[in-house]
């Protein structure tokens, strides 16, 4: 299996410095956050309630949502100062899975998966085909490969959306509600694939935003809480706050 992320700079450190984020003119989702994100492990992004900013945090980390003020740094380099081309090597080392949507509707599921591999020439077309089919087979969606996203059920779309970032063999994996609408068997198989990547030295930093406590109970992880526009590590005692509710 090819390991494209080895061509790209190694992601060692992720941090926020006085970071503020708001959508247009609404109230800030995050305000003046200074935080070093934990690395080299599974990290569970938690919040007390929905709409706290879990998905937004993942989008910021993926470089998809530019922050309003402050700094988001990867390896001490401010992402906000980088152009699309300068950020590209990092972006290709970041896998982001959407909670919903995110597949190109004018292409089949197979073409959706092949697109990043062929576009960036991350591997040969033959190797890309083998890899895509293997992953689709593994999670039981190979028979839908020629269907367009609108022609298949939501769970198949969700699986395709989860698999696509894995194909790029990322160093940093950001999963937004990965178990939403999926059976436990599929989810466990998916995390087996992540484990395979981790054994190869990839998917080193995996951030998961979910309310699925059962899933997270199966993974050795650290937790990051979002509360009132701030980030808190488990060690801050926020775990107690969640339990008390």
């Amino acid at each position, binding site marked *: 299996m090819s390991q494209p992320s080895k061509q790209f700079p190694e992601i060692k450190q992720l941090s926020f410095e006085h970071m503020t984020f708001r959508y247009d003119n609404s109230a800030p989702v995050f305000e003046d956050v200074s935080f070093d994100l934990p690395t080299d492990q599974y990290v569970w992004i938690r919040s007390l309630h929905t709409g706290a900013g879990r998905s937004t945090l993942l*989008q910021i980390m*993926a*470089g*998809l949502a530019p922050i309003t003020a402050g700094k988001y740094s990867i390896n001490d380099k401010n992402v906000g100062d980088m152009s*699309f*081309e300068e950020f*590209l090597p990092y*972006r*290709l080392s*970041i896998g*982001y899975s*959407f909670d*919903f*949507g*995110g*597949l*190109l*509707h*004018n292409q089949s599921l197979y073409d959706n998966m092949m*697109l*990043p591999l*062929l*576009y*960036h*020439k991350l591997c040969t077309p033959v190797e890309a085909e083998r890899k895509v089919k293997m992953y689709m087979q593994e999670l039981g969606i190979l028979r839908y490969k020629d269907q367009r996203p609108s022609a298949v059920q939501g769970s198949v779309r969700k699986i395709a959306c989860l698999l*696509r*970032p894995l194909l*790029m063999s990322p160093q940093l994996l950001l999963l937004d509600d990965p178990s939403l609408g999926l059976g436990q068997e599929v989810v466990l198989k998916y995390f087996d694939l992540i484990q395979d990547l981790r054994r190869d030295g990839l998917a080193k930093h995996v951030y998961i935003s979910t309310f699925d406590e059962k899933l997270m109970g199966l993974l050795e992880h650290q937790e990051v809480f979002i509360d009132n526009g701030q980030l808190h590590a488990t060690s801050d005692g926020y775990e107690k706050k969640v339990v008390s509710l």
Partner: protein
Amino acid sequence: MRGVWAQVDGVGRLVTTNVTYTTRLLLMIYVSIRATFFDQAQGLRTIFSVVSSQIYFTGWQAMPLITVLALASGGVVILQSSSNLNLLGGAQMIGNLLVVIVVRELGPLLTALVVVARSGTAVASEVGNMRANREIEALESMGINPLSYIVFPRMLGGVVSVICLATYFVLISLLGGFVITKLIHDIPFNFYVDSLSRAVAFEDIWLFLLKNAFSGMIIFVISCYQGLSVKKSPTEVPIVTTQAVVKSIIYVIVFNMSVTTLFYLHELVRIGVL
């Protein structure tokens, strides 16, 4: 007095808004070309496969409609020109009249309007829906610049398609129109072809290419720009599609009129009238 100032203010706002909008369009053209050719790791092969699809949808699929329109307008123009010129005793001028009407004006304008109606709407709603369905975000997350993957191929495909369609329009209009006219009005074919070939000049060809290339560019840049302006909701899509159509038509007509005016001013200067 206040009313006058309000009108001046209104005109000022209109001019500022349009200048800002036009600047943004020009910037988008520049950035999309730059992103396609100068960014590292951009897959040109994938991009050109999107260009060929765009040419198929915009160019090839519009041919039946262009054929009907060209036959009808060509037939009418030839019939009217020949009968009226005969009455005035200037039948040999038919070639000149057809070149002025069909090649310089009607071909580029009608083709552009057909492309706005068929493909401009399609592109604006497609890109708008892509925005609403988070497909644009997905492209960015894969390290694919939407400007090089979405905008540039549609722009290039649009330019190529409009030039080809307009050429096809002119050919069908002049030749097919002649055949239709022949059924009701006797014009010798040799006389007709000879008159046309004497009338076509080098300026007509570059004027034709200039008008069509820029019309194609204008239509597809505006459609992509409007599509990308969707924020989150699918309900924005029909609004931006309508805006794309209106703005495309206005920009195409203003551009064609400006080119025609400059061309005739140049001609007047050349023959010493101005």
